[in-house]
């Protein structure tokens, strides 16, 4: 009994530590890759090639003065970033990093838990995460923040539907909702081959969920002067920021589990392949940020409801027909 708890605590600490490190360094990756695409170097001074830059940003987050505007609704103003980061961190528990390994004679699973409703949990908790953005903008007492929050909320809930439809077709093919089951069913052939349309749908809707270009209207840096987090200063802003990058990392892991075959791969051990695929998706997120212009808000809504949702429904119908005809 006590052994179970010790293993659980150690696994929690390892997963949490590794994920926080990855989240902090994905800010470094983003700044470096954006810089190199724009023919400049990114951060170069703080440590070799800027590797200590996240540390410097963390120190800045602690040292800056916290400003709370007079118009702000104080309890909600303080709780909003907590909701955001809480939801983002709760998603770390079901990421399947690898298969079961045997360490020191004990079977240890390389994920914190394997819920039977796996992917539903992810969709549900990321919806709760959008509460943080909406409450943050609403409680700022600033009309630009409120507009940013409105847009963020509308965009996030209207892109959850096509994302769920894409996930449904994957679940139909794999037959199970649990993430470990989905990865294990891809041992022979990755889902991206079986479900290419769902892959595109999931990528586009995922980018919209994490408020990333071309859908970053809520935090449009040039237009709304940072949208819903306009009134937030040091630590609360750092929490929103970390929540966004944590969501991006979790998005990468979800794409890997659902479509790219999880931990399967030829020579290297499972977790190494998992991280290679996840970082490929994260690199793609940064790469497309540097390339695409931003959608206008009505274009975002039109894309979500008029294009992606019918595409999701069509995909489900086609998958169903395929499964019935070929008896898969």
């Amino acid at each position, binding site marked *: 009994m006590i052994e179970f708890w010790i293993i659980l605590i150690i696994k929690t600490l390892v997963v949490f530590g590794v994920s926080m490190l990855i989240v902090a360094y994905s800010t470094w990756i983003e700044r470096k*890759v954006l*810089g*190199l*695409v*724009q*023919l*400049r*170097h990114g951060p*170069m001074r703080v440590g070799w090639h800027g590797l200590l830059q996240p540390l410097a940003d963390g120190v800045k987050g602690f040292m800056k003065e916290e400003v709370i505007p007079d118009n702000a609704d104080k309890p909600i103003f303080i709780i909003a970033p907590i909701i955001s980061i809480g939801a983002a961190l709760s998603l770390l528990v079901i990421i399947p990093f690898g298969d079961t390994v045997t360490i020191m004679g004990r079977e240890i699973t390389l994920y914190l838990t394997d819920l039977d409703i796996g992917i539903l949990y992810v969709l549900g908790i990321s919806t709760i995460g959008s509460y943080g953005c909406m409450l943050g903008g609403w409680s700022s007492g600033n009309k630009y923040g409120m507009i940013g929050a409105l847009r963020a909320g509308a965009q996030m809930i209207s892109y959850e539907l096509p994302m769920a439809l894409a996930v449904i077709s994957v679940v139909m093919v794999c037959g199970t909702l649990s993430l470990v089951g989905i990865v294990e069913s891809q041992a022979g052939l990755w889902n991206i081959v079986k479900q290419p349309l769902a892959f595109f749908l999931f990528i586009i809707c995922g980018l919209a969920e994490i408020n990333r270009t071309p859908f970053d209207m809520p935090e449009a840096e040039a237009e709304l002067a940072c949208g819903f987090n306009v009134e937030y200063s040091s630590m609360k802003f750092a929490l929103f920021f970390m929540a966004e990058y944590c969501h991006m990392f979790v998005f990468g892991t979800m794409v890997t589990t659902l479509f790219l075959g999880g931990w399967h791969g030829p020579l290297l051990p499972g977790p190494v392949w998992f991280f290679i695929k996840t970082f490929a998706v994260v690199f793609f997120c940064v*790469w*497309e940020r*540097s*390339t*695409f212009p931003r959608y206008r808000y009505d274009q975002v809504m039109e894309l979500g409801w008029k294009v992606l949702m019918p595409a999701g429904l069509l995909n489900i119908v086609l998958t169903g027909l395929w499964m019935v005809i070929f008896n898969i």
Partner: protein
Amino acid sequence: MMEKKDYALNVSGRRPEKGNYLAPLFKGLAYTLKNYFSKSVTIQYPTERRRIRDRWRGLHRLKVDDQGKLKCVACGLCAKICPPQAITIVPYEEEGETRYPKEFIIDEIRCIFCGFCQEACPKDAIELTKVYDYVDYHREDFIFDIEKLKNPEKFIFTGK
């Protein structure tokens, strides 16, 4: 009617309303990936510097001749022609000796680095060097007297 403009990358020859929206996305991604692997154009100051042209107008230098005396005869032409009046000269002449400046003060903050003093000097005694990055903490240190003017190259910033 689209004129031929100078784009970095022309993803679609057609007007936006009639265009295809998927292929241009991939063309754009390919272009940024090519840029990712290209050499960046940043010059890492202060370890690297740009190439300085020969006629660059930087800090002044008062030239000396072979015996180590200043070439300047304190005629006052550079002070007269200087647009912001940054040069102050106090000449001195002993009986039977050549004229020389007792005080020659250039206020480098007032100076606009036009080079007129260098063109006006009849003795070729003042020239503008290629030193462009002198920094200091107090305004008084920017008022150069003869000692500082004799050797401005020692003020080049080396990154320390």
